[in-house]
């Protein structure tokens, strides 16, 4: 085996704060502690810093600053939009929501809560390549549809959805359209106006920002009830003393992500393809999700006869941080709902590996993974009674 090294290949779960972001945050964790609502200059400085970050986020999305609201992360943004639209349009008799079967749990569980409250949810299926069909959305829209919520890029298999097309359909049908873009922002060019996105969720820690900070874009004119009531922060739409350091960091993170997007994705795509091709030489393996319409840094491959947790622990012992299923559920034993949604049988879904790359990933990291993973798969298969059967019957 190659000389052991540390390879962090779980950037879809979270990323390392970049030096630029860290350096931008520190002053606000030290001397810049003024409350942005305070009247004195020390408070003003914080307010100005928030305004700048708001402009940066708006610019990154093609939105206006007043359409950006900071949150504690992607989950809060998803909850805010979906519960807010549902409760506000229910008064007008619109109690139907359309989403897809393979959304993040922040969307799925929120919809489930609404279903228990009496809303009706249509879960459109996804193809075996992990793509939502625009036709399906169009057909699902009814008179009483309040919201369509479709993720921009899937967190497990990295497939990129036809967002502009869905946006156009929703616009035509006059239905609000939200996209959970937590995995897409900074990795795919986004323009909310051109793509007819009404609301969008994003999270800083997926783009080398801090954990616990995110933002919600809400097109001007849409009336969204608050999820968190209280003080007048965020134009009275989201209460709570602002996490100035985290928000400043998000501004820097998103600006850098957009600035480096073309080169980075070009570079990552080469590494990703090298990983896919290399790992697919392992027998009884398959790539999950469309090969082209996928995030530049996402690899998701299933190995028959391999159990995910054993695979991850052995990779960890070899210095490789990776994931199997989404981060939030990797403590759970259920096979990933995403992999089941694209038609994988449970036992194969269990044996899947997600490698997610970032700016910091190097060619040497890729070489190392390509040398280690096949051996680890072999080792686990060697002690798997399931593998015995698979080769016996194949």
């Amino acid at each position, binding site marked *: 085996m190659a000389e052991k090294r540390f390879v962090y290949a779980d950037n879809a779960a979270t990323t390392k704060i970049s030096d630029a972001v860290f350096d931008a945050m520190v002053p606000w964790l030290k001397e810049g502690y003024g409350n*942005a609502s305070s009247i004195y200059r020390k408070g003003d400085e914080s307010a100005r810093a928030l305004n700048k970050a708001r402009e940066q986020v708006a610019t990154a999305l093609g939105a206006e600053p007043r359409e950006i609201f900071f949150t504690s992360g992607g989950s809060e943004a998803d909850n805010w939009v979906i519960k807010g639209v549902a409760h506000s349009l229910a008064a007008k008799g619109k109690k139907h929501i359309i989403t897809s079967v393979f959304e993040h749990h922040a969307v799925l569980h929120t919809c489930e809560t609404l279903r228990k409250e009496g809303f009706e949810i249509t879960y459109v299926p996804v193809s075996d390549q992990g793509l939502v069909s625009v036709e399906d959305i169009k057909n699902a829209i009814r008179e009483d549809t309040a919201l369509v919520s479709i993720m921009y890029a899937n967190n497990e298999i990295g497939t990129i959805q036809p967002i502009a097309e869905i946006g156009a359909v929703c616009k035509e049908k006059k239905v609000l359209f939200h996209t959970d873009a937590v995995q897409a922002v900074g990795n795919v060019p986004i323009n909310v106006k051109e793509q007819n996105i009404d609301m969008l969720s994003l999270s800083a820690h997926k783009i080398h920002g801090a954990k616990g900070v995110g933002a919600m874009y809400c097109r001007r004119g849409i009336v969204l009830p608050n999820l968190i009531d209280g003080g007048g922060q965020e134009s009275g739409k989201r209460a709570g003393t602002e996490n100035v350091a985290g928000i400043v960091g998000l501004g820097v993170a998103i600006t850098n992500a957009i600035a480096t997007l073309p080169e980075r994705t070009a570079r990552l795509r080469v590494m990703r393809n090298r990983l896919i091709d290399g790992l697919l030489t392992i027998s009884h393996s398959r790539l999950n999700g469309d090969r082209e319409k996928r995030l530049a840094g996402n690899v998701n491959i299933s190995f028959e006869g391999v159990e995910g947790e054993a695979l991850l622990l052995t990779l960890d012992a070899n210095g490789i941080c990776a994931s199997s299923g989404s981060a939030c559920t990797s403590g759970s034993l259920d096979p990933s709902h995403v992999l089941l949604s694209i038609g994988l049988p449970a036992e194969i879904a269990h044996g899947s590996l997600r490698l997610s790359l970032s700016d910091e990933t190097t060619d040497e990291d890729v070489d190392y993974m390509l040398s280690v993973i096949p051996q680890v798969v072999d080792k686990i298969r060697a002690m798997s009674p399931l593998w015995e059967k698979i080769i016996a019957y194949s």
Partner: protein
Amino acid sequence: MAMLYSDRVMDHFSNPRNVGELTDANGVGEVGNAKCGDIMKMYIKVDKGVITDVKFKTFGCGAAIATSSMATEMIKGKTIEDALKLTNKAVVEALEGLPPVKIHCSVLAEQAVRAAISDYYTRLGVDPTPIVGEIGDCHACEH
């Protein structure tokens, strides 16, 4: 939501021009607004139709004090006619703007000038209404 006042506002707030009372004033106007409970009192000395001296006292926020100060500077040495043309918009512009939530505070300064001129005419035995018009309440807010 911090105030984000301009440097000019802060200058006029910190070093207000023409603060105080005029013992020989021949026009004094006092206006207040319902919502903030703020009060502005303007003293003018008129000589041959020209405002030769002006002083003010204000109980109010930074914007109220800065607009009072700026308004006095803008009418000092002007004819009554010109002083009546002073609008709160002109005062705000001279201050290089005010935060949106503070625009209403500038209305007070415009009203105080008119109230003082109105008092000047009343003292002369002239009905001020046709010249100055109704002073009325602040129209800046929909309360």
